[in-house]
């Protein structure tokens, strides 16, 4: 069953779909929308795109942007810890070698 919060995320997807209307052959047209995550926890989303029709449509973001996923996996507290750890390591290195 879909929770109220998950419903809010789903509502970010255009209800009536996306109609590009008349488009010139061989030219690229784009439409954008934003997905908001109102939850207090991380949400993973996957896109399954029907590519049977000569791949006329494409959706970004797509895989290959793993660094974004990796960065998003850290909280602000994690960044503070990593930064202080790196700083202390650099300090120790400078004492040892210089």
């Amino acid at each position, binding site marked *: 069953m879909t929770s109220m919060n998950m419903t809010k995320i789903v509502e970010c997807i255009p209800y009536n779909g996306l109609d590009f209307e008349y488009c010139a052959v061989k030219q690229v047209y784009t439409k954008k*929308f934003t997905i908001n995550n109102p939850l207090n926890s991380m949400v993973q989303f*996957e*896109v399954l*795109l029907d590519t049977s029709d000569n791949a006329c449509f494409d959706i970004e973001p797509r895989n290959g942007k793993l660094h974004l996923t990796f960065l998003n996996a850290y909280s602000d507290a994690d960044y503070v810890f990593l930064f202080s750890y790196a700083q202390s390591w650099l300090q120790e290195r400078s004492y040892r070698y210089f």
Partner: protein
Amino acid sequence: MFFSLVMLKAGSKKEVTVTFKPEEAKVTVSTAIFKFKEGEKITQKVLKMSGIGKFPFINASDEKINFDQLTVGQQETKHITLRNYSLVTSKFEIEKINDDGKDLSFALSQKSGDIAPGSSQKITVTYTPTQVGAFTSTQYEIRVVGGNVLKLVCSG
């Protein structure tokens, strides 16, 4: 089916870009399934996408422009009008096709542009002869991206 995966941090936003590039003049309807996971909870939403591919088509008012005789040092201009008869915006590019790079007698006001459906664009051709007694003929190709190709011959 194509599969992609993205993580949304708590409270974050992600802009999704959908692109459509028709390869043929036809109606295309497709779907994408958005699957959201929050822990064990899974929700799905289908996004319907549609578009109509159309061939762009531009027509030129003239295929040949003749400036006749003109004194060296003088300048003369003539115009051609490109009209877009199609239902889509047409992108065009103009390229000189028979030029050795030495003769710069002809100049066009623009080499590329977009013309909205049913609209027209005026291109100015300027003739500035540089050699006495020389007949100059330059051919241009007007290419419509994904559409037709026109020829323009300028002489003087």
